[in-house]
């Protein structure tokens, strides 16, 4: 049962085997949760949005086009639900061009203490959490979900070149921070 493709599971659920939806949940919950935690900066909100996204996906399964990729379709639901949650909390939302043009400077805006630097695994987590929403979303989808820039552009409804701008800018900021804090060797 675990070796079924996403499409086979979806067809089974549509035929009435509701319990098969649990396989899809188990398949995607960790990756989506990792992304949501970085977008929402809060574990409880991340879990609430993830649950809502799975419920939305379940009730919209009939509208899923079989020629599309389930992961891209599902991440779009997750991303949009997260953005709605963020805008509901009146946080700053970064949309396509505004986020790309926006200047953010991690290097000068944050000083890490020695304790934070000592925990190298946690250090990179802190760095990502300091990134703006759209940057964190691109990094999460690219690294945790192994999605291509084309797939990410579909999820976020922005151009592929803008996805690359966000990806490169995020990496460069993290690189500068590592260099500033002399952490390159420690992380490696």
């Amino acid at each position, binding site marked *: 049962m675990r070796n079924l493709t996403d499409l086979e599971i979806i067809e089974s659920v549509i035929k009435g085997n*509701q*319990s098969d*939806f*649990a396989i899809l*949940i*188990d398949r995607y*919950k*960790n*990756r989506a*949760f*990792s992304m949501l*935690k970085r977008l929402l900066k809060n574990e409880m909100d*991340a*879990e609430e949005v*993830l*649950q809502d996204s*799975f*419920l*939305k996906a*379940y*009730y*919209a399964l009939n509208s899923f086009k079989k020629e599309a990729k389930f992961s891209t379709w599902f991440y779009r639901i997750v991303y949009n639900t997260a953005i709605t949650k963020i805008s509901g909390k009146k946080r700053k939302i970064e949309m396509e061009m505004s986020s790309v043009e926006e200047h953010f400077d991690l290097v000068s805006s944050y000083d890490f203490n020695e304790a934070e630097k000592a925990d190298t*695994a946690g250090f*990179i*987590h802190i760095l990502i959490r300091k990134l703006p929403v759209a940057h964190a979303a691109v*990094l999460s989808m690219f*690294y*945790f979900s192994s999605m291509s820039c084309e797939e990410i552009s579909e999820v976020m409804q922005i151009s592929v070149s803008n996805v*690359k701008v966000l*990806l*490169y800018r995020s*990496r*460069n900021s*993290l*690189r500068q921070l*590592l*260099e500033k804090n002399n952490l*390159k060797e420690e*992380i*490696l």
Partner: protein
Amino acid sequence: MTINDDILNRYLDGELGSDELNELERLLNSSPEIRKRMDALRSVDLALKNIEEESPSAGFTSSVMAKLTGKSSLSRSQNYLFVFVAGIMGILSLAVSGYFLVKTLNAAGESSSQAPDFSAYLNSFISTLINITSKIDLSMIGAFISLILIITGYFFFENLKHLKKYSR
């Protein structure tokens, strides 16, 4: 070739053309400064690749499935209630119509010693209905129709709410 962060990122993702690739590799061998920047970028890439996935709480899957099952059974029970109410309404309507039909047939049978005629029954039934609607029973019919409208409206808006929540 000017070596900027964009070129280094494209090199990391294997997106450089052969000319750019050869040029950059030559510079990486000859320039310690460029090599240092590239190494730092590789470190970031590796660190990001090594980040472990995080998981939601232990009972997450069963909690979502419980919500799905709960909603389905709620909607099933709403359907059962709807069928039950519609059934009661139907039986009541049949009983009321039957009562007046029997009453009409009896009245027509008493007033005529001849063999009963279907058109006479029909005329008599229609005139009885007209009499009912034009007298005191009109308020009863109004209340009956209002009740049906209220019950139908309740189910309609409940379903609409349910659809709206998950079609966004």
